[in-house]
């Protein structure tokens, strides 16, 4: 039998699409079908590449072989909702937005995470480990994962068991998170949920410098404020995003949202206000923060091009990275704007926009950012590659699971 025939047997004719010679897009409708597809692909040593909400993955550089692109589009069901424990078991192809729409009717929510968590498929967002999937209020999105079901290369399905915490060996769910489909194909996820907060507040502040704003944020976090989101705009970015808002040169705008029981939401906002004042800032028009929050969470469009460069930095390196990239933009004579967002205990992500965004400038800026202690998105722990290869070889001897990814 041919590969295509096997695939048709596994999922049905209408869910197999030939993309190229020996390359197929398969759209299974259940975890059992995923297992069938992977088992049958294994017989042909065909590579299995996951596709989430984002569509087709990048072509890898490894040698030509039969390939199955496994889409999670039809895996979009909620399997179980445990409203006593605030846990949802949902299939990998559901997007955060769809999930949120259903949860919202029941007074529940995934929680306060950056919008990237909402627009991606659940499987996709946990399969790839990137910074910026966290908030000071709810922590790291990976930590909301209570369990994962995945299909291994031999077609076996594993379900990591769900418990609030456990002390029974390594966290096997967290081994699947971030493995980008190389250890197992994630079919469903058990996610920790939150009750919708009693109150949501927003606030905007003006501060004299970027440095002061970063200090104010961490001063508030140190007092245990747990805002649901924060963003610092430099003056140029603020002008573009807020319809010509004029800030004195060098000043920055800080927008913040807090949530929770009303007293705590107010407490967190007040802690941030005190920190801002301590750093020489003042409160600004609250409607700016309102607009910022609506853009993030209600889908209002954000003006301006998408950022040319994203850099992650730990709290002590945020200021240096910002100045380093700014300096390299200036030497290239480019227009430079930036905002810093996705603050958490580990740091934040800096978003830089250059005009024009020449490759030369971006390369120079990347180098400057790394020299200043920043981390470019998509960096890998290459030193651990031999271990990852050995781990993959142990679960996937024919190397069919997303080969060409992660070294």
């Amino acid at each position, binding site marked *: 039998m041919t590969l295509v025939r096997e695939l048709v047997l596994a999922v049905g004719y209408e869910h197999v699409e030939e993309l190229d010679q020996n390359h197929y897009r398969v759209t299974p409708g259940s975890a059992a079908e995923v297992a069938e597809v992977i088992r049958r692909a294994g017989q042909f040593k065909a590579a299995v590449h996951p596709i989430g909400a984002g569509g087709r993955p990048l072509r890898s550089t490894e040698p030509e072989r039969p390939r199955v692109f496994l889409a999670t589009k039809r895996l979009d069901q909620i399997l179980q909702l445990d409203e006593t424990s605030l846990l949802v078991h949902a299939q990998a192809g559901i997007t955060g937005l769809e999930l949120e729409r259903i949860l919202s009717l029941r007074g529940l929510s995934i929680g306060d995470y950056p919008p990237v968590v909402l627009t991606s498929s659940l499987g996709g967002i946990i399969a790839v480990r990137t910074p910026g999937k966290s908030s000071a209020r709810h922590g790291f999105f990976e930590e909301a994962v209570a369990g994962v079901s995945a299909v291994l290369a031999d077609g076996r399905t594993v379900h990591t068991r769900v*418990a609030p*915490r456990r002390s029974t060996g390594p966290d096997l769910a967290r081994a699947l998170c971030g493995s980008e489909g190389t250890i197992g194909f994630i079919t469903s996820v058990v996610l920790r949920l939150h009750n919708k907060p009693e109150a949501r507040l927003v606030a905007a502040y003006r501060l004299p410098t970027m440095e002061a704003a970063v200090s104010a944020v961490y001063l508030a976090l140190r007092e245990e404020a747990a805002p649901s989101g924060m963003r610092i705009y430099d003056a140029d970015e603020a002008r573009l995003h807020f319809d010509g808002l004029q800030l004195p040169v060098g000043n920055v705008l800080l927008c913040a949202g807090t949530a929770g029981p009303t007293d705590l939401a107010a407490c967190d906002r007040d802690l941030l206000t005190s920190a801002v004042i301590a750093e020489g800032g003042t409160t600004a028009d609250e409607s700016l923060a309102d607009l910022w929050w609506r853009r993030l969470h209600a889908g209002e469009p954000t003006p301006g091009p998408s950022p040319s460069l994203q850099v992650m930095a730990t709290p002590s390196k945020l200021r240096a990275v910002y100045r380093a990239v700014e300096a390299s933009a200036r030497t290239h004579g480019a227009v430079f704007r930036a905002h810093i967002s996705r603050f958490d205990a580990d740091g934040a992500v800096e978003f830089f926009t250059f005009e024009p965004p020449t490759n030369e400038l971006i390369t120079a800026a990347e180098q400057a950012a790394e020299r200043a202690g920043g981390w470019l998105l998509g960096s890998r722990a290459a*030193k651990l590659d031999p271990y990852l290869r050995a*781990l993959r070889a142990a679960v996937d001897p024919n190397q069919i699971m997303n080969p060409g990814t992660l070294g």
Partner: protein
Amino acid sequence: MVRGMTAVDAERLQRDLEAIVGPRRVSFRQVDLDTYSRDMWPRLLLRYREDGPNNGLQRPHAVVWPEHVREVVAVVKLARSMGLPIVPYGGGSGVCGGAVPVLGGITIDMKRMQQLRSVHSDELICDVDAGLNGERFERELARRGYTFGHFPSSIYCSTVGGWLATRAAGQLSTKYGKVEDRVAGLTVVTGRGEVIETDGPNRALRGPNWTQLIVGSEGTLGIITSARLRVAPAPQLRVFRGYEVDSVAAGVEAIRRMLQKGLRPAVIRLYDEMDTLINSFSHHDPTVIEPPPIGPVPPIATGALPAWPTPSPKEDESTFQRLIAFAKGRTSRKVAMNAALGKSPLVNKVFGAVAEKIARRGCRMVIGLEGARIRTEIEAALCFHELETAGARDMGEDPGWAWFKHRYHVSYRMSPMFRDGAFVDTMEVASSWERLGDMYHSVREAIGKHAVVMAHFSHAYADGCSIYFTFAGTAPDARQAERVYDAIWRDGMDATTRVGGTISHHHGVGLLKAPYMTGEHREAMAIFEAAKTALDPDGVMNPGKMGLRPRGANAR
């Protein structure tokens, strides 16, 4: 494999180990090998009590005390070349036999690697060696104005590395999290004899989470030599309060609601009727002023276990008379205790009833908050309000502070029990809120067939909670005691798995729970096995533990 060892090998082992760490930091003396043949697993304590040093336990072939990562690497490489097991050893406070050298080999005691290397105040992280004792770690952080927030009752006799190896929990875990929630990166000597660093300054790196794969592996993948841990500013304020609720179910519901509102006390503990009762007799608790129906029972100095209430006349007269006598110190403790524990199902039933009757006020709760002044004050008010809304009765600050004062004592109360011929152990299981009630009843029943059992709920999360069962039993001789002990664990673990709970919340697996690992993880064990193959292909690291399949020389 290496139960015995040829003279040639023994000589080589000594020569090579001395070359690595020098003659003073390696030992082959019987007294050291004896000491390192066990940890604090109660089953081994039973064996020791009965048989003394001639207990038939496997001893390590050597004990080494490295002071540097490169020495650890060299020892692991040597073990690998000789096909000898490596057993990492921290404080030796483990209660599951995780540090027992079941196949002999080299025990690496990490306690000489014990520096708090640095505290990065901007990042709120610190770099610390694995062998540092918990209490010293916390004291050194406190000196700099920080806390790690990890306070297990073993804090005086456990190490940072031991915490990480077992996914330990401290008493303030509701605020600070378990140790796995507080780790940002690890330095590990793998079973291949290489040093790896996981994660690092942030979570920006792509790939699977190696830190979370190695944390909790109990030395079966490698030896954690140092860690990058998250710290918090030292608390500016601490608030404690005692409450009483009508029943376990009401208490559980109150805690769930509080946590699911997003409130995070540092600690919230709920004691079931039996635990409440025994607690109230063992602490000099100022709130226990109302005498029970038939005169008060004086508290005994040795602590939480066992102190028994006075019976109502209708109950089993003779057992109770002996118990009272025991509690009052009038008779041999041993006689009284054995009498009581030998009839565990009866005692459980009778005491359950008596406990409810005498402690009519219901179940005791303790809540504590700590942290930054302003936020803690507000959060405390919200927490207390939530509990009162749920019908809990405010008992004032004193019960809370009393708990705080005695919080490390529990671990030290067990030895008198063992001395007197009984055994005590604790079973800490966890589940989602939905299954918690089922788990409480089914595990309680499973243990209650064999021993006196009580429980408290001590680590709560938004999605579930742990239950900490304490049980005490006895048997005519050590062999029978071991059989009862094993039956308790078998039935307790089965009951837990059956209702969908996890068999361990924070004590780890070791030897004790290894037989239940397949039931716990089922097919997902394949991933653990793959990690084992990747990090320790020859199976030298802590073999025989955690239900992993034997490898390399140990497979023979």
